């Protein structure tokens, strides 16, 4: 009998076949930022833990309950530390114990840490077994968070939207996961955490009450009508009109911080992670038919107190965050706006490479390249990349590129330095899209294992394609 159990290798192959047959590049999110954040966060929370310990012994028992922040946010999170709930609720069936350790929510975004402990030998084998993969094994697919009707980002059984094992916390018999999701209406139906087991499901209701303040703003007077914004220290949701076919969906939204500095959306949101999504709700009324209505959600990279925001800028209109009817016209630095470059596709499977100088010029970043070492300074950070190295240094911290080992990082073509688009996007915190219309494709027949004829559409290589860069 053949073994037909499903694993991550199968998932990888399914994606590969999909990519081959459609020519679509599926974005798998680089993990490097998470590791980077974890390091930065530890120093902060150790300090916070010491303070808490000295205050009261009640907090001492909770002094490692900071994984929610450590996993999802960087920087100082102390000002909302007290909003983390630690239900410590657990249910057991004699084989497994499912426990909900921590919950952080602003009534829109929910972050939690849960654990599963094995109580018997065979349960332990099931929990820990088959662990050949770097991050996780298949066991996590037994755990799901309720697809309740009130939740926008319902999580299907099998693949939580964003669940990541906290490998450092793993013990002989237990494993921990950090989970992130977005809710529409927490009051609609209780959110539940569920572990599917042979003897029936273990279920815990997730407490979703919060003390985190959020703001809902209606930003009026845009060509397509109004923009809706919901802002909290954890993230933002926007609903606005977007020109149909525009590759730069939210590139006209900016934030003025209390110190006067203007930040782009990308500078605040967690880049290239499941943290952001775009949903297009369809066309707006006929008079503005060149626009469609899109909802865009993103959680922030740092926890940002609402008092740090002064205004939101949409297009050329600046809206006061405390009174959005107070508006003013504004002209921003052109380096904050999207631009396009000619990316290079060197060979099949290598993705697109961006011309480093053109990208830096467009962003207003300083760069130097001596043939071996590339240095880029942008948004207060300096990154140093060495040709042929699989790591780079950002503000003195060594970070590994989260790219496949066969991927090139940098290449020189026709005397121009190019860099892997995923790498440069993570390093600079920018976003980008390939203009598919500019890509020349070729249809190639492939032989499938079942013997039936089929073809796939592949980008011709080498070729140059248009690429939009969004600061």
């Amino acid at each position, binding site marked *: *009998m*053949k073994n*037909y159990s*499903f694993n991550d290798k*199968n*998932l990888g*192959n*399914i*994606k*590969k*076949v*999909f990519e081959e*047959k*459609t020519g*679509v*590049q*599926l*974005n*798998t999110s680089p993990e490097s930022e998470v590791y980077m954040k974890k390091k930065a966060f530890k120093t902060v929370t150790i300090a916070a833990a010491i303070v808490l310990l000295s205050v009261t012994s009640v907090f001492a028992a909770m002094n490692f309950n900071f994984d929610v922040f450590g996993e999802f946010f960087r920087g100082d999170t102390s000002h909302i530390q007290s909003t983390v709930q630690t239900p410590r609720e657990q249910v057991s069936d004699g084989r497994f114990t499912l426990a909900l350790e921590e919950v952080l929510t602003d009534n829109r975004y929910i972050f939690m840490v849960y654990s599963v402990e094995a109580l018997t030998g065979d349960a332990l084998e099931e929990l820990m077994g088959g662990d050949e993969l770097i991050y996780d094994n298949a066991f996590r*697919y037994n755990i799901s968070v309720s697809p309740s009707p009130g*939740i*926008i*980002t*319902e*999580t*299907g*059984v*099998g*693949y939580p*939207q964003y669940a990541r094992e906290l490998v450092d916390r793993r013990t002989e018999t237990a494993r921990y996961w950090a989970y992130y999701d977005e809710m529409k209406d927490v009051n609609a139906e209780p959110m539940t955490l569920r572990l599917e087991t042979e003897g029936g499901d273990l279920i815990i209701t997730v407490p979703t009450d919060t003390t985190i303040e959020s703001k809902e703003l209606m930003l009026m007077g845009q060509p397509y009508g109004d923009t809706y914004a919901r802002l909290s220290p954890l993230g933002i949701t926007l609903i606005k009109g977007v020109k149909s076919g525009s590759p730069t969906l939210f590139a006209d939204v900016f934030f003025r911080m209390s110190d006067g500095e203007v930040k782009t959306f990308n500078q605040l949101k967690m880049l290239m992670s*499941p943290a952001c*999504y*775009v*949903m*297009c*709700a*369809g066309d707006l009324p006929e008079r503005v038919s060149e626009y469609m209505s899109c*909802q865009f959600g993103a959680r922030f990279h740092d926890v940002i107190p609402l008092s740090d925001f002064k205004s939101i800028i949409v297009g050329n209109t600046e809206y006061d965050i405390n009174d959005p009817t107070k508006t003013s016209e504004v002209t921003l630095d052109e380096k904050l706006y999207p631009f396009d470059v000619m990316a290079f596709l060197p060979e099949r499977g290598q993705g697109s490479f961006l011309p480093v100088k053109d990208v830096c010029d467009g962003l207003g970043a300083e760069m130097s390249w001596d043939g071996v070492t590339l240095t880029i300074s942008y948004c207060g950070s300096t990154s140093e990349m060495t040709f042929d190295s699989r790591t780079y240094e950002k503000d003195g911290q060594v970070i590994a590129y989260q790219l496949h080992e066969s991927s090139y990082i940098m290449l020189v073509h026709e005397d121009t330095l190019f860099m892997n688009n995923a790498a440069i996007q993570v390093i600079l915190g920018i976003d980008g899209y390939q203009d*598919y219309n500019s890509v020349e494709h070729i249809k190639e027949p492939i032989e*499938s*294992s*079942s*013997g*039936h004829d089929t073809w796939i559409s592949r980008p011709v290589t080498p070729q140059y394609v248009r690429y939009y860069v969004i600061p």
Partner: protein
Amino acid sequence: MNNGQIIRGIRCGNETAINHAINRYSKLMWHIAATVLQNAATVEDIEECVADVFVYLWQNSDKYDEQRGSLKTWLSTAAKSRAINRYHQLSKKNVVSFDDEIMIGDIALIDEIVTAETKQELIAAINALTEPDREIIVRRYYYQQKLKDIGFILDMPVKQIENRLYRSKLKLREMITCQNGG
């Protein structure tokens, strides 16, 4: 991302949306395809079959109608029909070399009527059965699939599969004994 967002994202040509769909539903699609293709296909066949479901979703997302059912059901149906097509393609190739000892051995053990000489006749007789009886026999004895799984594949209650198997075996016995002049 919920299913509404996934489907709207896919209609907008958003790669993140299809990636979400693949992450979320591959395991389920895998189980469906594997049930249909059990022992009849390689792991690669199943992978391709699952990938085809998402290729179909990517290229035909406009055919999905939220009002008529969930995305999960729609994808499940697509997975099943793709797997069944794949099975038929594969079994056409495989059935040619029907003289697999497992197949013959199993039926022979049950009915004690098949000798080495009647092997070819048995194959001919099986191929002469009408569908879905032929498919049930092949799935049960050649691919060693469970009655429950065959029921799922053919949308039939297990009891009906059992009955059909029983009647097919009687029919086969009849056909072979007739051919042998018995």
